């Protein structure tokens, strides 16, 4: 019966990916505790692996998992010798609530998202917990996506659940006053996952599209959960625009292909269209543009331009200036410098980068030397450019990026 077990396992994995958020959210609402809800759901999955081999896959697998998990919760409380009042009441409530139907529970999934991204948790714990309980990824999948050991992810999740329990974090959507801060944590988790997939900070691969696509799925889920939040649509727009270039960003040998050299016919037009629509939805809410919307607007100008030369660089400079005022950040300044180089010329851009360098911004990062190298090369100062590019190569942890920087430096060497 090995084949049957394998079939059940594969269906169960697919079911889990689709249903886990709803199952865990239903259980968390019933128990008031995310940690035990997740444990109960996992136990139900283990039971399904056995039961479904005998009985086949049920018509409504999500309802099956929820019902089994609820029964297990009741059994566990019954077994305890000192069944206190609270548990007696909970058991009664659960039993009464074990409905055969499995209703879509929009609000409960939203609570799940906010609880997993609670500010009492560190950002990496929020990421691990969100990918686990909201996106339904396994610990192994999360570990693989973030290039960390499985044990590390396990620890983060266990600690996160303990922290939530110890802080007595209720399973709820935040009050209006806390909404803004909590939402920004939620968006931060999605954005962090996406950017790590978009440009891996380390390792031998330049991008990890699977991770970026998971982030996009989470983002689209949030769009459906929070249709009135402009920044949610804006973040999705930003991700759609960036993801539309995935096919063009890597060469056949796995090396990064930079914007200027990308074959724009391979950009995903349908995805760009979805990005334009999402940004329009954000703008349509009439609350002005926040930082994700400004970034999305920049990405939109790139995505809809036929070439680097015809790109509206002046508009991009203006958007970067707005972004810099909203959230001053040296990375934004470096990007602004790159846009200025295109709109005005490399000399003006170099002045911006030199000022950043003098301020000691981004020390230890490859970003400033790589942009400086680029600008110096355009100004014909090859020798200085070469030194900067080699410095940048020594500072990046991504092997693919290092190869590109070294190749650029070598090309400058040859010309002399």
């Amino acid at each position: 019966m090995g084949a049957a077990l394998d079939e059940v396992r594969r269906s169960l994995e697919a079911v889990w990916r689709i249903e886990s958020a709803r199952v865990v959210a239903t259980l968390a609402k019933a128990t008031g505790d995310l940690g035990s809800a997740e444990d109960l759901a996992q136990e139900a999955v283990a039971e399904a692996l056995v039961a479904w081999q005998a009985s086949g896959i049920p018509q409504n697998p999500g309802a099956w998992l929820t019902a089994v998990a609820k029964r297990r919760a009741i059994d566990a409380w019954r077994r305890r010798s000192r069944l206190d009042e609270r548990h007696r009441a909970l058991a009664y409530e659960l039993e009464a609530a074990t409905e055969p139907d499995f209703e879509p529970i929009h609000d409960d999934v939203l609570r799940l998202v906010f609880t997993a991204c609670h500010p009492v948790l560190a950002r990496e714990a929020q990421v691990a917990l969100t990918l686990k309980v909201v996106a339904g990824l396994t610990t192994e999948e999360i570990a693989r996506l973030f290039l960390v050991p499985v044990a590390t992810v396990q620890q983060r999740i266990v600690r996160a659940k303990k922290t939530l329990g110890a802080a007595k974090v209720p399973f709820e959507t935040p009050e209006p006053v806390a909404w803004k801060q909590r939402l920004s944590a939620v968006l931060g988790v999605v954005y962090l996952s996406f950017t790590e997939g978009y440009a891996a900070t380390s390792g031998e691969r330049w991008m990890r599209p699977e991770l970026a696509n998971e982030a996009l799925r989470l983002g689209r889920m949030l769009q459906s959960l929070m249709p009135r939040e402009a920044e949610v649509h804006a973040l999705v727009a930003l991700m759609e625009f960036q993801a539309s270039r995935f096919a063009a960003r890597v060469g056949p040998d796995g090396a990064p292909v930079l914007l200027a050299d990308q074959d724009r016919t391979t950009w995903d037009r349908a995805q760009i269209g979805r990005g334009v629509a999402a940004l329009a939805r954000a703008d349509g809410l009439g609350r002005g543009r926040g930082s994700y919307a400004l970034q999305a607007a920049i990405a939109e100008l790139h995505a809809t331009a036929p070439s680097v030369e015809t790109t509206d660089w002046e508009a991009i400079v203006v958007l970067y200036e707005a972004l810099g005022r909203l959230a001053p950040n040296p990375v934004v300044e470096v990007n602004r410098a790159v846009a200025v180089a295109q709109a005005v010329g490399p000399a003006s851009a170099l002045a911006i980068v030199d000022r950043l360098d003098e301020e000691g911004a981004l020390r230890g990062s490859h970003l400033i030397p790589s942009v400086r190298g680029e600008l110096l090369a355009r100004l014909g100062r090859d020798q200085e450019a070469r030194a900067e590019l080699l410095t940048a190569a020594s500072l990046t942890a991504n092997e693919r990026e290092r190869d590109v920087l070294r190749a650029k430096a070598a090309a400058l060497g040859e010309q002399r």
Partner: protein
Amino acid sequence: MKYMLIMRTTAEALEASKDLDFEQIINAMGAYNESMIQAGVLIGGDGLTDAAEGFVVDFGAETPVVTDGPYGEVHELFNGFWLLQVSSRDEAREWALRAPLGPGTKLEVRRVSDESDFEDFSDNEYIKKEKEWRGVEGAAGAMGSAGTADA
């Protein structure tokens, strides 16, 4: 990974479905769409109108030939689709003839259903929701402007 779920039906099944309550079909399909939207997996899709409204461009001969059919066998490979925003059936035909495809390839050209196909059900819950899902500006319009920018 992206997948397309291609709805295929036999003439008999299509005929039989005409006895069903159209509103019931809309509701079932709407609930299915909604579940995929809430899971964040649905990125696009449209219903195709009756095959009798469509036509086939056959690239088998030296010059492409437009015929009323026949339509693809069930086991035929579907390897992509385009969504065009055009003003007429003829315009669609013109674009189809220009597709850079070789012998062995057929383009099935079908009109995508729009709001007008559901006019009688404008009060339906899912028809209303669909307008929200699709947002203020449809993706097709945006693609049109991006695609013609370099012309």
